[in-house]
């Protein structure tokens, strides 16, 4: 399933709506709550980055049972130094944006923390493309873990049995 939203720069009245809709779709799709949490942090921060920094853009979510991809593409000033922008606390947001509770320089770092895979391409005075993926594999890992635990539990029993002999 693909959801695609237009996002306008400086439109704070509607900012966050796209991420909210993506969250509802993920809940309806029955994704794991941890996956939803990570995906919406990425979607919301990416949407706000377009609103705060770019002229306009799109926020896209590709949802499959195993993976959520969030893609934010914008036309805007671009990011001249991506590693610098990834640093916690680094922000180019102006004071009036900060007064609204944004611009703490945590957007991209939070996206990085939440994404299992992340790619950011940017060209100055053209725009930015952010691609992030979150894998919905918690249950698969959990099952594997349970199998391992069961195996090791069986081994423990066996060794315990051996030691008593």
């Amino acid at each position: 399933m693909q959801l695609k939203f237009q996002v306008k720069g400086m439109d704070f009245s509607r900012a966050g709506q796209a991420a909210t809709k993506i969250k509802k779709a993920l809940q309806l799709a029955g994704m794991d709550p941890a996956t939803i949490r990570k995906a919406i942090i990425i979607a919301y921060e990416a949407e706000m980055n377009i609103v705060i920094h770019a002229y306009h853009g799109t926020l896209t979510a590709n949802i499959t049972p195993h993976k959520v991809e969030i893609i934010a593409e914008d036309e805007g000033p671009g990011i001249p130094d991506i590693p610098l922008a990834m640093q916690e606390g680094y922000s180019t947001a102006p004071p009036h944006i900060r007064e609204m509770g944004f611009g703490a320089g945590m957007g991209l770092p939070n996206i990085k923390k939440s994404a299992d895979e992340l790619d950011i391409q940017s060209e100055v005075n053209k725009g930015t493309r952010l691609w992030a993926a979150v894998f919905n594999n918690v249950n698969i890992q959990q099952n594997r873990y349970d199998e391992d635990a069961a195996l090791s539990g069986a081994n423990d029993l066996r060794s315990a049995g051996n030691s008593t002999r």
Partner: protein
Amino acid sequence: MLHADVLCGADRLDTEVTCGFGCDLISDSLCFARPGCLLLTGLTNVQIIRLAEMVEARAIVFVRGKKPGEDVIKLAREKGLPLLATDLFLFESCGILYQAGLRSS
């Protein structure tokens, strides 16, 4: 306890909150506020309502005497989100609620 005014959602004041979170930063609220929490903040723009919806907060308390505009209250009413406002500071508000047994998000 907070001598708060109810701005909207008076009919939902018996809603149970499972924890509290106090913050004036949108990004941190998004990352650390847990579903079912009471959100305490000095941010009064429309974004805080969208954020509360996103993190599934049950209600918002605006601190330091701040009151949101009518557009913000209207959106909260639509979302069924109770809004309260107190003159107390964030630290004091959190302290009073903590003493009363509410724990952190």
